[in-house]
């Protein structure tokens, strides 16, 4: 445990003794590939042939016209295989697992995107796969459970705690402490003990590298602002990484405001006073917790943002002021998603739609010769049940009732 991965006071490796050797092994394996240009080439080639990299940067002309301000560009992570940026991290870790010689992968999942991505990777590389998913999320994202199972993964519904993402992470750790000899834990976001925040950011930084090249090619200048939604923080860290050293580019992270910050029913760790610094799940960051340190229930319409902690790197970037954080409410998210669908024919995931909300609020005030980038971290098709409920679509409702009746017959 020599390098424990601190970002000012955030991060670290608060590990039970049984996992120390496993993390030392992982940190060493990651350090070796990080400095190996061949590994990155192998990774890029895999993502170009198996996923859809480089993903396009789409100019949203209708939205730009609608808001009358900055030119709105959208980074299309939704076009990755399995429909989200999660594939970047998962395939990178999949290659790492091969180098480490392990034969089984486990993962937590909230929205199910990371679980599906991991199950795909496991199928492709020939690993055994177990996915832990909170019981509440199993209900919210049933189609993803179906696909994970079809891909050969065992999906374990987690019935303890608040039965969402954080509880799935705890269960994955409990599996890992028993099976670390042959098993790698594919953590899905830039959280957890060192080296996960750095490693996940490393694989996701492919988003920002591409986006920077693409915007320079299109506009000949840097964007004024870059927007990303923030759950654990992996898509945000990924796109921000490309612009971190460009001081003129303002980076904006958008958290889940749920039913509003004042309601307490949200998942906003970096722009609500309900969060405080603490240590859980092996790392130090801002957590939504009570005065005694017990983690609180969180709420978001987007399962993938419904998490008590946040990347320690983002906590650090909040304190240095490099990234500005905002929150979008469930209602605003549904409205912005509808607008993106109607105006551009894009279907952002509910998670990604949080970034759209803030960009839409700010675009009119920017000059027409400026550009902004929104990271569309995933596609919204998976959210059809939640979105159809939010849109109160009568045709869909009738269809479900008929379909259920067929199964009952």
């Amino acid at each position, binding site marked *: *445990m020599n390098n*424990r991965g601190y970002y000012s006071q955030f991060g*670290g*490796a*608060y*590990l*039970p*003794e*049984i*996992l*120390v*050797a*496993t993390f030392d092994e992982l940190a060493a394996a990651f350090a070796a590939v990080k400095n190996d240009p061949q590994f990155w080439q192998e990774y890029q080639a895999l993502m170009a042939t198996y996923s859809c990299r480089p993903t396009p940067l789409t100019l949203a002309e209708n939205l730009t016209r609608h808001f009358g301000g900055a030119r709105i560009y959208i980074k299309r992570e939704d076009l990755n295989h399995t429909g989200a940026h999660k594939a970047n991290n998962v395939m990178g870790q999949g290659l790492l697992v091969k180098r480490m010689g392990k034969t089984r992968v486990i993962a937590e999942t909230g929205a199910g995107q990371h679980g599906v991505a991991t199950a795909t990777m496991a199928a492709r590389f020939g690993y055994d796969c177990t996915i832990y998913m909170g019981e509440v999320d199993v209900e919210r994202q049933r189609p993803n459970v179906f696909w994970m199972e079809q891909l050969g993964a065992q999906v374990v519904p987690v019935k*303890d*705690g608040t039965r969402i993402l*954080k509880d799935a992470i*705890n269960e994955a*750790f*409990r599996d890992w*402490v*028993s*099976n*670390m000899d042959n098993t790698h834990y594919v953590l899905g976001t830039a959280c957890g003990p060192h080296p996960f925040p750095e490693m996940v950011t490393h694989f996701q930084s492919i988003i920002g590298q591409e986006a920077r090249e693409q915007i320079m090619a299109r506009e000949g200048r840097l964007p004024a602002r870059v927007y990303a939604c923030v759950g654990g923080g992996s898509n945000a860290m990924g796109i921000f990484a490309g612009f971190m050293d460009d001081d003129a580019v303002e980076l904006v992270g958008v958290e889940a405001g749920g039913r509003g910050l004042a309601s307490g029913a949200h998942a906003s760790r970096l722009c609500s006073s309900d969060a*405080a610094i*603490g*240590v*859980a*799940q*092996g790392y130090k960051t801002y*957590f939504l*917790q009570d*005065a*005694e*340190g*017990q*983690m609180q229930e969180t709420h978001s319409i987007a399962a993938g943002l419904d998490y008590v902690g946040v990347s320690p790197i983002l906590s650090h970037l909040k304190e240095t002021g490099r990234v500005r954080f905002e929150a979008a409410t469930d209602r605003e998210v549904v409205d912005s998603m509808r607008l993106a669908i109607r105006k551009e024919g894009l279907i952002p995931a509910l998670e990604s739609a949080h970034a759209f909300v803030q960009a839409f609020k700010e675009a009119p005030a920017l000059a027409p010769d400026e550009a902004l980038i929104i990271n569309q971290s995933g596609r919204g098709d998976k959210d059809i049940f939640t979105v159809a409920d939010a849109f109160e679509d009568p045709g869909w409702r009738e269809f479900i009732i008929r379909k259920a009746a067929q199964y009952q017959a």
Partner: protein
Amino acid sequence: MLEHYLKERRQQKDILLMTHIVLGYPSWEDSLAIVDAMVAAGVDLMELQIPFSEPIADGPVILRANQEALQRGATVERCLAFGREVARRHPIPFVYMTYYNILYRYGVARFVDNMADSGLQGAIVPDLPPEEGSGYIEAMTQKDMHPVFIYSPTTDDARMHYLAGFARGFVYCVARKGVTGMDTSFSDDLEQYLDRCRAATDLPLALGFGVKEKADVEFLKGKVDIAVIGTQTIRLVESEGVAAVAGFIRGLR
């Protein structure tokens, strides 16, 4: 000095027993009754677990006990008051077991002051390796409290020696991989691991995870100083009630 007490006690007994409860589970009345029964049945020291919402090293039985205790309002303040009361009431040493966030939010120095003032002897904080715990170790040392560190079968010899440099009171040896409450195979492998533990420190050794019956305790005699009974008494209280505790403990050695 906890170490001194344990070594002295070992002169009189083949093996010592450390038992465990989750504070406030199944209720505060039961917690007190369980401690009284355990002490009356002759346990040598006790681990008092302050519930935490994310008990990452614990298996399903203790995990649920943590959750239910919290749902029934087991606050940290109430746990500390309970610790103070039992330490005054009984002559055996008590240590807290909890996760680091509980200390961190309470204030590490303030937490340690409270322990010392209440007559507790030390603490086990399973998610705080010494690398992350310098402030904790310093506060504990200042107040003559015992930071108990953990060995596991995956800990190599060099790290065992490193950990021994910070440990006081005793070292808690985890019997196997996995979380609390699963079966342990009491075998030659375990014996070889315990030989490594023994070679790394002069402190008394406690062995926990999966110890649940007399045969297990018997196996550990001569190999460690303390057998730790954790999950099994929670299961017992759940299935047979508090009244079954004393008989169970008496039957262990």
